């Protein structure tokens, strides 16, 4: 093992095994429009990375980048089906109709679900949205020691961080 590529590796896993499987299993009968899927993905992204004092992920347009990822289309569609089906079982028309507490509970359940589509949907959104969100200059600027390695390097490398 040499110790690089964690981010690339895990991204590939998110995109790979799961997405390929679902494409085969549920390539038919997705009931939702792309607009509904996009709204739901936006809502999930907002719940996951709300900002907490910084601009949130949707404010930075992160959800649009995820929605535009063609390799995630099937995964997103299937995830939205799962979230909406859960909402219907609880007496609401769909995930978007839930209040914040309800949305939070639905996402929590998706992470713990034995349903591949649900689990991999939220894991994948977390991965891609988190990667993009914490790479945003406005977010990084709120944290010390996040700038590029060059040209300065770290003259203080021997000392306690400032």
């Amino acid at each position, binding site marked *: *093992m*040499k*110790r*690089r*590529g*964690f*981010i*690339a*590796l*895990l991204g590939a*896993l998110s995109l790979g095994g799961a997405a390929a499987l679902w494409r085969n299993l549920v390539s038919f009968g997705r009931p939702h429009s792309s607009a509904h899927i996009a709204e739901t993905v936006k809502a999930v992204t907002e*719940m*996951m*990375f*709300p*900002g*907490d*004092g*910084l601009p949130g992920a949707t404010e930075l347009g992160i959800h649009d980048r995820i929605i535009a990822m063609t390799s995630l289309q099937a995964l997103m569609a299937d995830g939205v089906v799962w979230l909406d089906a859960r909402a219907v079982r609880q007496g609401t028309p769909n995930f978007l109709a839930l209040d914040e507490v309800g949305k*939070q509970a639905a*996402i929590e359940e998706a992470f713990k679900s034995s349903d591949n589509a649900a689990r991999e949907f939220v*894991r994948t959104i*977390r*991965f891609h949205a*988190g*990667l*993009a*969100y*914490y*790479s945003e*200059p406005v*977010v*990084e600027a709120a*944290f*010390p*020691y*996040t700038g*590029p*390695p*060059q*040209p*300065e*390097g*770290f*003259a*203080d*490398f*021997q*000392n*306690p*961080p400032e």
Partner: protein
Amino acid sequence: MTNDANWDVVIVGAGAGGAAAAYGLCQQGVSVLLLDAGPQFDPTTDYPLTGSDWDTRDFPEKAGSVGAVTFAPGQKLIGDEPLLVSGSRGLGRLVTDGTRLMEKYKHVRGIGGTTLHFTGESHRIHPDAMKMKTRFGVGADWPIDYAELEPFYMRAEELIGVAGPQTQGARWRSRGFPLPPHPLSYAAQTLGRGAAALGLDWQANSRAALSLPRNGRPSCNYCGACNKGCPRGDKGSADVTFVAAALATGRCIVRPDSPVLRIEAGTNDRVAAVLVGRPDGSIERIVSPTLILACGAVETPRLLLASDGLANESGEVGRNFMDTLGVIVGAMHPEPQHGRRGLPDDAICWDYNAPDAVPGVIGGCRFYNACGESELKGLAGFALRAAEGWGRAHAQSVRHLWGHALSVGALGEKLPNRNSQVRLDPDKHDRFGIPLARISSWLDESDLARLRFMAAKSRELLAASGAADIFESYSSWDWFGATHVFGTCRMGADPATSVIDADGRSHRWHNLWIADASVFPSSGGGEAPSLTIHALSLRTAEKIRKAG
């Protein structure tokens, strides 16, 4: 060396081995054609490391810089190995299907080869690790000893400008390191206090990074990003050291983007030429008065096997494949460390490096400060891996924990076994129709025992340093992602059990030599191999010159 070609020697592969061989030959008045399948990188444009997206980029991939390989199915994971399971608090378990993940062979094609993205540890192999069979009854012996290599280690270190401490235990030296050691980073100092509490010797690592300006190259500015490519040229990758020095002699021609597809056998047990693929898909024949293969422990056996099994009289080409066992453990320290600052792997513990130093198992290992190598340098990777969950609680965790991570790594010996090998893939080919290399890697019980020790000791070191809250751990048990690979064209005295002789020459083919880590009979106890490859290649260059 008179011939019809415009060069005396053709070298295939411009990485650690080929570049050093080229330099060694040119310095002796021999002319060289240095071929590489990959491109020429330009550090200032290919990896400037000044962009805001630096943390989501790995070492760049350019056309031809990544060679495709395939993998045999991964080993079934048997039993409960809580110390060895790969995964993180934020992303969960890496492998969930019960099979070792064969992820990647991390190899760079290009002028400079894999040294372009190496960390730049510069290690001599432990002398006892060269005598595994006679001393410890496992693996194979090198047909040469440490004393034979020592002068060539010195030459390589001088050219690179290796910075290191006064002594390194069993690795005796005829002279000191060319440059003083790098000061330890703050995170390495924290780990050093933990090591002291455990009675471990924690010292400055020897590094192919300049601690003082040298030969027109600047000293390191401790940016911590060696693995993404060094835009300054202070890291001693082969392009800025051996290749540059070879070119300066005026006797070296370097040709990137020139994959060698096949070796053409000649008469009288001599090879005649190599066939080289051109970017337009045509094939060029290049006469090779003397041929050195330096493509690494995967591509060198592939090339020989794809050349009708050339030099495989022993049947050992592609066998004895050894990857390096690795563990990385990350934990939170109560105080901020910001361990991305400083030279990666700047501190090391050699206490368990000797082949008999790990209790209960033969084969050594070493421990090091892995803060710079754990890919937690950037905020995004940290947020995803180190902080659990999502939402506001996650945001608060990231804010609270950022900079607190400490990582300890361990690399260890992998003993050869008959299940670990490189063969030709029967189905997959490159664009020239040459079969791809197919890697099989198998861990024996002794490897697992060594891994368990490495993982346990890494955790112990972190805890003693004040970082007991472990948030991630990765190991070779369930994840193959090797850079350091060895053994597939083993050197040895016996033609029946080895591919090349003690000088680096094929037992049969008089003008065929190998100069890369495929010749290592043993991997060592976790040492980075580049310096030993350099030394062996300089020695082989001398043998070639003497052979005429």
